[in-house]
């Protein structure tokens, strides 16, 4: 028996009766005999040939010459199959060749720094079954999460899944966001993710401005290496007392920052207080974030509301959040999206008032008047600016013509 010290078997993915849209791949390197593929699949009568073909292609490109490859497929889509095989090959310490990336969708238009960000739907980066329909539910953004929803042992595999999803999945009108891991692990994420041009990257647990600078530099480096020119916006997440204290400096740390947000689970843990539905314990922190964001000229975005069953609580939280100056919040379930959009929508009274102000402004412009007045009242320029912005949002939400 030869001592195959350098080779080890590698596994990735999941299978079983409860698993959907995923697969499990096990690769056992061999000395000779070529690549043998042993395939079991729930969809074998329909896609058995296609899965086998794809597996052969990916394995060959990754430079594996001799191995036993066991695949248990539970109806995974091609981009998932490619990611799982690549993860297994890498875990076996074998990936020497070039990786096989799935065909890339046409990239949607680059997103604007100040685009509407009322809702962002979190999707665990290790659960491919949630990826494909995530955009259907109409959130402003979809976040493919590499951080807290991914087990530490699955970080490498999730990174490949998210990379492939950014290429192969149509996220429709949603902003394509990725939440990277904390530094320094997060820097490894950037090498896989940035070449696929996500619209925005969320940086977790930011406490000091130099963390943002480090991420931003690394992004620029990878962008240059891969020739990516479109913007990749940043959204730092403040999740500690120190982060809140540094909020303004963080918001100003990079001109790629589009928004500042807060993570209340970790923040309340840092303070050693209980997170309540009313949120009194985090009121100060949320006000600081809102103020710092506005001072820095970026959007203020609130945390998530974790109780998926409590729609009334969510609505109340959202209304309060908007009143504090936030422009949106996170969603942990698609059912939360409509409620959040409703909460962050301007009221009909606000729209009516803004319409009057805008009309007065237009009239003053036409007449060449420097001063805008409504009835007997003089209207200050910031009020006009706010009314114009509100009308723009109202139109984007389909609330005004």
């Amino acid at each position: 028996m030869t001592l195959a010290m350098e080779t080890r078997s590698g596994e990735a993915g999941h299978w079983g009766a409860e698993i959907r849209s995923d697969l499990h791949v096990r690769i056992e390197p061999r000395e000779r005999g070529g690549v043998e593929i042993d395939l079991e699949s729930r969809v074998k009568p329909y896609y058995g040939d296609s899965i086998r073909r794809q597996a052969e292609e990916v394995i060959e490109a990754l430079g594996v010459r001799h191995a036993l490859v066991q695949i248990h497929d539970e109806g995974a889509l091609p981009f998932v199959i490619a990611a799982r095989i690549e993860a297994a090959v890498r875990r076996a310490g074998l990936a020497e060749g070039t990786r096989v990336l799935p065909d890339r969708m046409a990239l949607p238009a680059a997103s604007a720094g100040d685009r509407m960000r009322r809702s962002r739907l979190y999707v665990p980066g290790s659960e491919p079954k949630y990826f494909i329909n995530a955009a259907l539910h109409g959130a402003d953004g979809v976040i493919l999460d590499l951080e807290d929803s991914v087990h530490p042992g699955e970080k490498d595999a999730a990174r490949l899944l998210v990379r492939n999803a950014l290429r192969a999945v149509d996220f429709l009108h949603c902003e394509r966001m990725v939440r990277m891991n904390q530094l320094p692990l997060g820097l490894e994420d950037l090498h896989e993710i940035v070449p696929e041009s996500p619209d925005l990257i969320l940086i977790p647990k930011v406490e000091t401005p130099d963390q943002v600078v480090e991420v931003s530099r690394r992004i620029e480096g990878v962008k240059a290496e891969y020739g990516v020119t479109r913007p990749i916006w940043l959204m730092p997440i403040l999740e500690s007392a120190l982060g809140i204290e540094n909020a303004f400096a963080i918001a100003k740390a990079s001109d790629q920052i589009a928004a500042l947000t807060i993570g209340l689970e970790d923040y309340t843990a840092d303070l050693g207080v209980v997170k309540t539905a009313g949120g009194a314990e985090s009121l100060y922190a949320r006000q600081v974030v809102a103020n710092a964001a506005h001072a820095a000229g970026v959007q203020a975005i609130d945390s998530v509301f974790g109780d998926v069953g409590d729609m009334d609580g969510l609505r109340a939280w959202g209304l309060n959040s908007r009143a504090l100056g936030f422009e949106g919040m996170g969603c942990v379930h698609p059912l939360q999206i409509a409620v959040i959009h409703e909460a962050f929508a301007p009221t009909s009274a606000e729209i009516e008032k803004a319409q009057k102000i805008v009309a007065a402004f237009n009239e003053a412009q036409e007449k060449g008047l420097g001063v805008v007045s409504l009835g007997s009242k003089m209207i200050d320029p910031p009020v006009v600016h706010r009314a114009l912005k509100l009308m723009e949002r109202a139109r984007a939400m389909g609330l005004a013509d």
Partner: protein
Amino acid sequence: MERDGGLVAILDKSALTANAAGRMVPETVNGRPQAPYKGVGQHHPAGTKASPPVRTAADYPDDGDKRVPDLETALRKCGLRDGMVISSHHHLRDGDRVALMALEAAARIGVKNLMWFPSASFPSQKGAIELMESGVIEHIEGSMNGPLGDYCTQGKMRGTGVLRSHGGRWQAIQDGEVHVDIAVIAAPTADPFGNCDGSHGKSACGSLGFALADSTYADHVIAVTDSLVPFPCIPWQIQGNNVDYVVEVDSIGDPAKIVSGTTQITRSPDRLRIAEFVARFLREAGIMRNGFSFQAGAGGIALAFVSYLKQMMKQDGVKARFVRGGSTKYLVELLEEGLTDYILDGQTFDLDGVRSIANNPRHVATSPFTSYNYHGKGNFASLVDAVVLGATEVDTNFNANVVTHSDGRLLHGIGGWQNCLSAGCTILAVPSFRDRIPVIGDEVTTLCGPGELIDVVVTERGIAINPRRQDLMDAVQGSKLPIRPIQDIKKEVERICGGKPQQPKRGDRPVAVVKWVDGTVLDTVWQIP
């Protein structure tokens, strides 16, 4: 009836013929010549209805006490012998114990080559496989799924399966295509005279409509109950005047599997999206208006649909004249909140449904005769404004499959599905793919519903309207609903799934046929190698 096993085997090698839908179907099934499907409304039957033998009260006890000690005795007294047809019914669903009890009693008597004629079979009745292996049952005509479905599609059953809709089963009995020798009716409540009721008793299940045809047309009828009451059993859904014997047993079924405690709405966001689209479609198309009617089943999407529709009915101040069950808590709420005048109920799925049908005179039990029978002077199904159904596959001509998986394995019974297609607006609510398998294809594996009767396909990726329904197209024009050509949705899903699926292999031996509502043969289920 000469139904010798050997003879059947020879006749089953009969020629195949192409029917009007272009499907190859056998000309003879289980020794009986068949009419191939001719098109919707094209088959006009002649002749008279089947008639059961005349009986005389002289042969039945004057005191009305028809009780016998056990099922074996009852079957012997009915003259059970080789090759007979024994029928049973699925109002107790997966909780039913009576059908197997009867078939096992027949096995003890020692008869062979029975045809079991259930209104539907369930996984808990997989014991029928042993009875087929030992020759007691020759074949099954009725829905088969789970282990029985696999047994049939693997070609292990001696005769050919015949799949009929609920209305088609009534039609087959009434037209004399199937002559029931002995009907065994599971009765949640019965009296010694044989009057039966489904809405009371420890195994209450609601309506007994599926057993009505058998009670009328069978040579012999046995009522089996675990809740015997003194005459009269009120209400009587089955008339004791049609019943020969009454058997009392400890339990006719497992209550936990007869009705679910509470039926649950799906929490899957994709399915909720489909349900919401369906409700919005009915509203935007103007179908949801005062005095309208609809039918939806008890699946997750259908329940969610009812809940969305209810909100919209309340918002718009709209009330339905009637809704058709399968009743559930959600239909009962509509009734109790005054949002519908009536529930016309074919079967009762949960405890709220059972409570309501027992107590509310506006919650009415119906039968396949009133609801579905195509060989009658009309039926209720075509009076319904909109029906929401599922499907395993649909093609770009809107033809749909509900009985087999796309690999040809038997998966579901037809139920009332085919009959419901005659509603004013027939909507299939389906995910666009399941486990990477696209639901919309070039051609369905097994044809159960002709595309000309299917009006709308609603998926999470958009709504396709049958081009034959320009009126519906016009009605929703200008709405915000994602109306798309069916080919468009198909193309998108094929891109997601990595191309069209390959064609699964199938054998060339028919193992079952799918009947259309008029008794003609619509398609063939083939053996899977």
